[in-house]
Each structure stands twice: as structure tokens, then as C-alpha cells.
């Protein structure tokens, strides 16, 4: 089950918030370059888990080890060089230009002097190139469409040059074309940089196609952990979502896909 080289290991991670257990004894481990899909019903604790990894949320119990060192032992900037985050909501319509915003991803590398080094500018340029946002660099953030903004959020995370990318429903507001483009960028990033990715998603079909591993959370507990294809069965799906599922093989790959039920 465990990948050859453990990059990130969670053991019995639990978190209580407002008297309610949001995460309960979550254990999982992730190897270098692995792509993990985190699925499960609404409120299962998927986003919470990402935020614990990121240290946006603290106060959990259990242990999280990153590259052999306890997560708590990392300094903030050091952790940011390991992990970058693409949040679910478009965030605040901050009054910055695309380039200015993406350059903020270089924060963990900068000293007290505010100037960008040549290396910083290089990283920003690469991130803009990789996400096809180079032509937007002077545009203000608030003037972008949803698809463009999401690519810029990814560019900012890439400029951070972290080894692990945490994505929280990155394509949820995108139309099919932008979704496809965004996924293509992710695939390219994975290919070229070998990044480890953890993606929270409700899109089971994409989760199955684009990831090496899948973990399903239910009520804060790990309900399934294995390959995406083995999750795509009626028994597994129905156990996690408590909902009937209709499956059919993908026309080209043969993977099982979820289909919407025809209305009665």
C-alpha cells in the first residue's frame, strides 16, 4: 500500500472543532510524485484535512510527518517551500496585477528586502508560461474570468516551487473547455516537475482518470483507500455516498465511469 518512498505520512490525525469531531484517526501516506484524489460527501473533512497539512488549521492530534520531519517542526516559510495551496474559493478580489500576485508566491524565498531576485523572476515567468497566463500578466486580478483566475491561482502556487501541490476543487467553477485546459496544465506540471499532488474533488470520473491513488473520507474517517479504479464500483461508491450509482466503461480506456441516472 505505501509508496516506495514516503514523502508525507499521516498517522491517526484527529481534529475537533466546536465540539464536533471533523477528522477522526485519519492515516495515509503518500510517495514522491504521487497524485492523490481526496473524495467523499460534503462535510466529510476533505478541505479540513488539506488545511491541516497546510497549517492553516492547527490543534489536531496525531502525527503528520513530511520528509521525515514532524510538520510542526517546520518554519512557516520552510513549509511553504514544500507545499503550495490552490484554494477552493476564488479568494478576495485583491487589487493586484496577475504578475504581482503570482510574484507573491516567491515570499518563502525572499529575504527582508522586497526586491525579486533573478531566480524569483525566472520562477514567476515559468509559472506564467506553464499555465498559459503570460498574456494576462498586466491584467488586474478582479478583471479575470473564472477560468483565467483559477489558472492564475495555480500559477501563483507553481511560482512557489513547492514539491507538493494541494488543490481544493480547482475546477469546480469552470466550464468544460476551461476545465479541460486546467487539467491539461496539471498533467503537464506533473510530467515536467514531478510534483506530488493532493486534490480534493467531487468529480469522480476525473478523479479516476487523473490520479494514482484515491482516498475517500466519510464523517472524518477514511472510508476507502486504494486505486481509483477499484473505488469505481457500485459497492464502494454506494457505501461512501449512500446513493445509488450507475456505472459504464469509458469508451476509450475501459475505466468504469459514473453516469447520471435517467429521470424516471
Amino acid at each position, binding site marked *: 500500500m505505501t509508496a516506495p518512498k514516503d514523502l508525507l505520512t499521516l498517522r491517526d490525525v484527529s481534529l475537533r472543532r466546536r465540539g464536533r469531531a471533523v477528522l477522526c484517526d485519519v492515516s495515509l501516506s503518500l510517495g514522491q510524485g504521487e497524485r492523490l484524489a481526496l473524495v467523499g460527501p460534503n462535510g466529510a473533512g476533505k478541505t479540513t484535512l488539506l488545511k491541516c497539512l*497546510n497549517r*492553516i488549521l492547527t490543534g489536531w492530534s496525531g502525527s503528520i510527518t513530511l520528509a521525515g520531519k514532524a510538520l510542526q517542526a517546520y518554519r*512557516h516559510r520552510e513549509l511553504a517551500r514544500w507545499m503550495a495551496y490552490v*484554494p477552493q474559493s476564488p479568494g478576495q478580489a485583491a487589487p493586484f496585477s496577475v*504578475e504581482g500576485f503570482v510574484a507573491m508566491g516567491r515570499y*518563502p524565498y525572499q529575504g527582508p528586502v522586497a526586491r525579486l531576485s533573478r531566480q524569483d523572476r525566472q520562477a514567476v515567468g515559468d509559472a506564467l508560461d506553464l499555465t498559459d497566463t503570460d498574456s494576462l500578466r498586466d491584467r488586474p486580478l478582479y478583471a479575470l474570468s473564472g477560468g483565467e483566475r483559477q489558472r492564475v491561482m495555480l500559477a501563483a502556487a507553481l511560482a512557489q516551487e513547492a514539491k507538493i501541490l494541494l488543490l481544493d476543487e480547482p475546477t469546480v467553477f469552470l466550464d468544460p473547455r476551461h476545465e479541460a485546459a486546467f487539467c491539461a496544465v496539471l498533467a503537464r506540471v506533473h510530467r515536467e516537475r514531478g510534483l506530488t499532488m493532493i486534490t480534493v474533488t467531487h468529480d469522480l470520473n476525473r478523479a479516476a482518470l487523473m490520479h494514482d491513488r484515491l482516498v475517500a473520507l466519510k464523517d472524518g474517517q477514511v472510508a476507502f483507500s486504494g486505486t481509483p479504479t477499484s473505488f469505481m464500483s457500485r459497492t464502494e461508491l454506494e457505501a461512501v455516498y449512500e446513493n445509488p450509482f450507475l456505472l459504464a466503461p469509458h469508451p476509450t480506456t475501459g475505466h468504469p465511469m459514473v453516469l447520471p441516472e435517467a429521470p424516471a
Partner: protein
Amino acid sequence: MREALRKASANLLILLGILALLVVLVTPFIGMQTITPASLFSAEPSSMDVKIFWRLRVPRTLTAFLVGAALSLSGLTFQAMFCNPLATPFTLGIAGGAALGAALYIRIGVVFALLGISGQTLSAFVGAALAILLVHGLSRMRRDFSMAAILLAGVAISFFCSSFILFVQYLSGFTHLFQITRWLMGELAVTGFAAVRELAPLVLCGSAVILAMGKELNLLTTGEELAISRGLNLRRTRNVLFLTTSLMVGGLVARCGPIGFVGMMAPHICRLLVGADHRRLIPATFLFGGCFLTLCDTLARVLIAPAEIPVGVITALLGGPFFVWLLISDGAGSTGFYRSNAT
């Protein structure tokens, strides 16, 4: 076009710098009685002109500049920290606490001084510090307190302080009542350099700290979670900014009374002029805030001379319309901050 923009805002910064220099050099000559440079240098050192110039005008100009600059910078910092365009240090009860401290000192009437700093200043400072500790303590009591909740708690503390001041005033005799009211109006009239000596280190150190945290302020404006994920030590950053601005504003308000408005408007005006990047916005706000209050104070001295208008009256009378004009002008669209997408 990017280069052009960058250059334009760099030029604006230089322009603001020159303006600041001019303002500081020229305003001491203006007043109820105009002093010419010639009379300053030709007259003997004990002449009235020389005395007025060095003992009253220059210290006052410097005080006004420092106070304006520091209040504006604190406003800018709080707006970024709370992601709220209406946040000022005054909204968080700092001014309220300071005013209450000063009012109580005046009412109790025990005169004392410590290390050359007057008891009134010290009491006001203690009041400000208590208000800050209260707001800060509240925010630590619950980990999940949102910034909006902290802001509201600050507003509540502000109101509590104002009511308490009214109560103290109600219990006060006529002399005390007048002293308290006068203090509440804000006062930039100083004699000699004592005030400047007290304020300058506070303002300059505080501003230097804020200036060094431009990147952090930028990150804060993009939202807390994103800022943390970019490696910002949120708690430490917040503590440093909170402490710095509080000390600075506490000291200013203790000395000069609650001069409002500058702190809220100057950062917005500067954002419209140089954009939202704090690395430019911080120096711009410092310079603009300083110039603005100095000019307002000069007007306050000359408009109905020999009487003086309280400077707080002028800042809002002038700054309000100017700000609204900037807001509705086309330039405001270019920062996005001030435009809704729905039309």
C-alpha cells in the same frame, strides 16, 4: 505599459517626496503673522519673529507632519490586516481608550510626570494600551474569532469608552470639562521641541517596521489562508503589526488627542494614486498623510486668524469632498478595489 505604470508611480513617489519637503519648509513661514526668510535671518536672535519661528512654527509643522504620517500609516496597516476598507486604529478603540485615560487624569487632577513625559500623555497611553490588550485578548480567547468579530469588539470598546468619557464629563466641574473637551478636539499647538522629541522616535521606528513589512501586508490583502500557505507567519505578523501601530497611535493620541479621518482617508487616496502594492503604498501614505495634516493645520491657523479652527474640523471638511471626487473619477476604476462588477 507595465513599465510606464511603474515609472508613473515611481515618479509620483518622488513628487510626493518633493511636496513633503516643500510643505515642511514653507508652512512654518505662514501663520497669523507671515514671517519672511529675510526677516528670519536679518533679525537678531531674540526678535519676536525668530522666537515664533523656532519655538512655535517649526515644532508645530514637524508635529503635524509626524502625526499625519503615522496616523495614515496605521490606517493603512489596519485596512490590510482586517481586509476592511473602513478599519482604522480608532475603530479598534485605541483612541477611545486613550481619550478615557486622559479624561480620567484631568478629572482626578493629580499632576505628575515621568521621565519628562506628562502624566496626561502617560494616562492616555495607558488607556490606549488597555484598549488594545482588551481587543487582543478577546481575539486570543477564541481561536476561531474572525477578523470581523475583532473589529466589532473594537467598536464596542470604542463606544464603551465614549460613554465612560461622557460620564466623567458629567461628573466634572467647568474647568475640567473644558480641558477634556479641548483635548478631545485634537491639538497640534506645541511649544518647543519637547513634543517632537517624544514623537519622532516613536513615529520613525514604527514607520520603519511597517515599511519593512510591505510584502507581508500585500499577502494579508489576498486573504489569511492564502497568506499562510505562502509561508506567512500570520500570528507573528499580526502581533508585530498590532503592537507597532498600537504603540505609535497610542503615543500620538496621548500627545495630540484623537485626530480622526486622516487615518482612514489618506491610505485610500494614496491607493488611488499609486496602486495597491504596499511596497509603494507605504512610503506614499507616509508622505501624503504628513503633508495633508500639515497643510490642514496651516489652514486651521490662518483661515479665521487670530482664532484657530480645530484641525480635525479642517481635515474632514477638505478631505471628504476630495476623497469622494477621487472615488468617482475614472482613475478609481484602475485599482478595482472601488468598483463593483454589477452595474
